[in-house]
């Protein structure tokens, strides 16, 4: 999960980010976002602000080069195509808006990251979202990788929820005002499957059991995610936000088909609380952002084969684990910012072991649509230290919209 501990050669991963199909992206605009969410531009290089065509289309390129050293040994440099994203969005009627995000990682065949319809016809501030989409958990999980403040998703999120957490199902979202300065938002979603993807530790290619959810299930076997968050004015130009999230998977199996092994009837739950504080100077350009999330996972949190060569059983870890990350980020104008993030988490495979990551990064927005980031990640996992330095380049083309929410 952390940094590969075997020598790897990588210099530049290129994330061809998002082709946004969403003609109405500009009419719709981005969701009202809050500090700590990425704020992707809505119209990138090569496109006008016109929303005459429908659907709108966009592309994002996110590329990086990195070098890694593990416990003092130089593992070398590499370049990779991380993600190519293709993104479409459109109003399908005045009360319904749809978007699709296709992503290709490392040049592989594109996969469907998100395909969802947001329906607002129920009045008030209600939104019903149906389809496949990144779940509303904390402030980082809705983002695609290129939208994060850091190169990778924060450690405890990767460890407990996965690199990305898309669910197929339905989500109800609403907000109300508590007084004049405190909007409170909540959402609850039920999903056919909510097992994270991309949770990987480098363990030399050891075969692992796969987590799967039964095809047909009772209603109480549906996974769900719920979130409640409130933000309020803090001082003349500041904002404070608190949130709490939960993801529950009530029924899943670990299977290893090669040996016909399975452990059935498993479940686990992840809880999270998050806090964010942001402020700016009188010009609105110098911005300070401080935040963090604390996470806990409980239940059947991992599975492993008893023997990698001739497995006879899947051992399930029935335990709990915790993790957190905190960060501070300062932008001294529209184009330059720097930040630091510290994350630590128990490993789900063995909660008596833990891992940590310290990220230092400097972001230079060349334009509204083009970003260069230099960063260093110092990691430790199960007693093995590693250092990774990287340069990341991200460019948005065309109209861009993801269904982010505060």
């Amino acid at each position: 999960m952390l940094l590969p501990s075997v020598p790897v050669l990588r210099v530049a991963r290129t994330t061809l980010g998002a082709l946004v199909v969403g003609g109405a992206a500009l009419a719709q605009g981005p969701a009202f976002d809050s500090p700590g969410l990425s704020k992707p531009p809505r119209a990138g290089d090569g496109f006008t602000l016109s929303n005459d065509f429908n659907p709108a289309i966009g592309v994002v390129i996110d590329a990086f080069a990195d070098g890694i050293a593990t416990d003092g040994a130089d593992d070398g440099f590499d370049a990779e195509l991380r993600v190519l994203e293709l993104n479409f969005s459109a109003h399908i009627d005045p009360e319904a808006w749809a978007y699709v995000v296709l992503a290709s990682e490392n040049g592989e065949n594109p996969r469907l990251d998100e395909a969802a319809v947001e329906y607002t016809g129920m009045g008030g501030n209600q939104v019903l979202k149906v389809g496949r989409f990144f779940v509303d958990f904390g402030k980082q999980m809705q983002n695609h990788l290129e939208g994060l403040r850091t190169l990778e998703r924060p450690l405890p999120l990767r460890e407990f929820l996965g690199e990305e957490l898309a669910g197929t199902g339905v989500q109800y979202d609403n907000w109300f005002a508590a007084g004049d300065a405190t909007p409170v938002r909540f959402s609850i979603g039920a999903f056919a499957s909510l097992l994270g993807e991309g949770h990987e530790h480098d363990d030399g290619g050891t075969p692992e059991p796969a987590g799967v959810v039964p095809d047909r299930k009772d209603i109480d076997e549906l996974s769900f995610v719920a979130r409640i968050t409130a933000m309020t004015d803090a001082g003349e130009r500041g904002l404070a936000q608190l949130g709490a999230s939960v993801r529950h998977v009530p029924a899943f199996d670990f299977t290893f088909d090669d040996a016909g092994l399975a452990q059935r009837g498993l479940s686990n739950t992840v809880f999270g609380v998050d806090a964010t504080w942001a402020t700016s100077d009188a010009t609105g350009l110098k911005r300070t952002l401080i935040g963090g999330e604390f996470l806990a996972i409980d239940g059947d949190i991992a599975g492993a084969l008893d023997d990698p060569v001739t497995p006879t059983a899947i051992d399930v870890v029935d335990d709990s684990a915790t993790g957190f990350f905190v960060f501070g980020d300062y932008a001294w104008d529209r184009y330059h910012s720097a930040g630091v993030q510290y994350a630590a988490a128990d490993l789900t495979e063995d909660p008596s072991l833990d891992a940590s990551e310290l990220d230092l990064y400097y972001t230079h927005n060349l334009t509204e649509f083009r970003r260069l980031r230099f960063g260093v990640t110092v990691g430790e996992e199960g007693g093995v230290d590693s250092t990774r330095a990287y340069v990341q380049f991200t460019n948005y083309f065309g109209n861009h919209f993801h269904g982010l929410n505060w």
Partner: protein
Amino acid sequence: MKHLLLLAGLLFVHTETAGAHGADSQLRVVATIPDIADIVRTIGGEHVDVTSIAAGTMNIHAVPLKPSMLIAVNRADLFVQMGFALEHAYVPGMLAKARNPKIRAGQPGFVDCSQGWEPFDVPESLSRSGGTDLHPLGNPHFNLDPRGGAHIAAKVLEGLVRVDPGNEAEYRAAYDAFLGRIDTAAKRWKELGEAMRGKRVVTYHSELAYFLRYYGIELFGTLEPKPGVPPTPKNLGMLISRMTTENVRVVLTSPWSNNKSVRFVQDKANATIVEVPTMVGGVPGADSWIEMMDVLHESVARALADG
């Protein structure tokens, strides 16, 4: 799961009742910039309760939003924006999220002040090969044209009358009085303006383009190579050498752009830096639209007289 559904149900009930109270008689108006807010206050008087999203010292293209703004927009009877994509970075998203059907574009409660204003500097193409262009529909800073206040006032009057026809007579009287005050002020401004004709200035962003054109002042150059593109060493070098060769000494900056690039030009081109208001409240004494324009005229006139 059952408990969560119950919680969602309770929250839903709360939401449905939240909007029921607070039915005071004042119209709730949200303006994107303080210039519009001032004019709404002037015309609406005691009938309006006005909130401005941006503060006068900010870069209007990059306004940080506060949670209270979402609620203000959600409850607003009237929403007034400048238009020409000036607010494109935050208004569409906020309107979508605030879910107030009264102030959606095209509804009676939505006012776009750019309607009927002839913009200039409309880009011929938007290839964006040189980066972003924050003025894709032409220069949106017409609040700084000496005629801008009257234009905004006319749009505000239309909006107020649409959503509150009962007080039309009062709104019209206040509007007429405002135009009278602008006429009086315009005589002062004209006198200062005549002395500025034909002079040359440099600005950071092209916020003052309407103002300069109105008085025949030449915009010699901008520190930004394009609206929204930060100054590059190459662009600054060329600008400084042109300023030195042609003896242009006055650089006008707004409060948000008074940064190290400005001071670099000050040092290298031996220039005079003048911070001028680009929105109401941007500098001390610029507390209303007319006062802001007074400060702007006086500051520019003084700098050009010295320069």
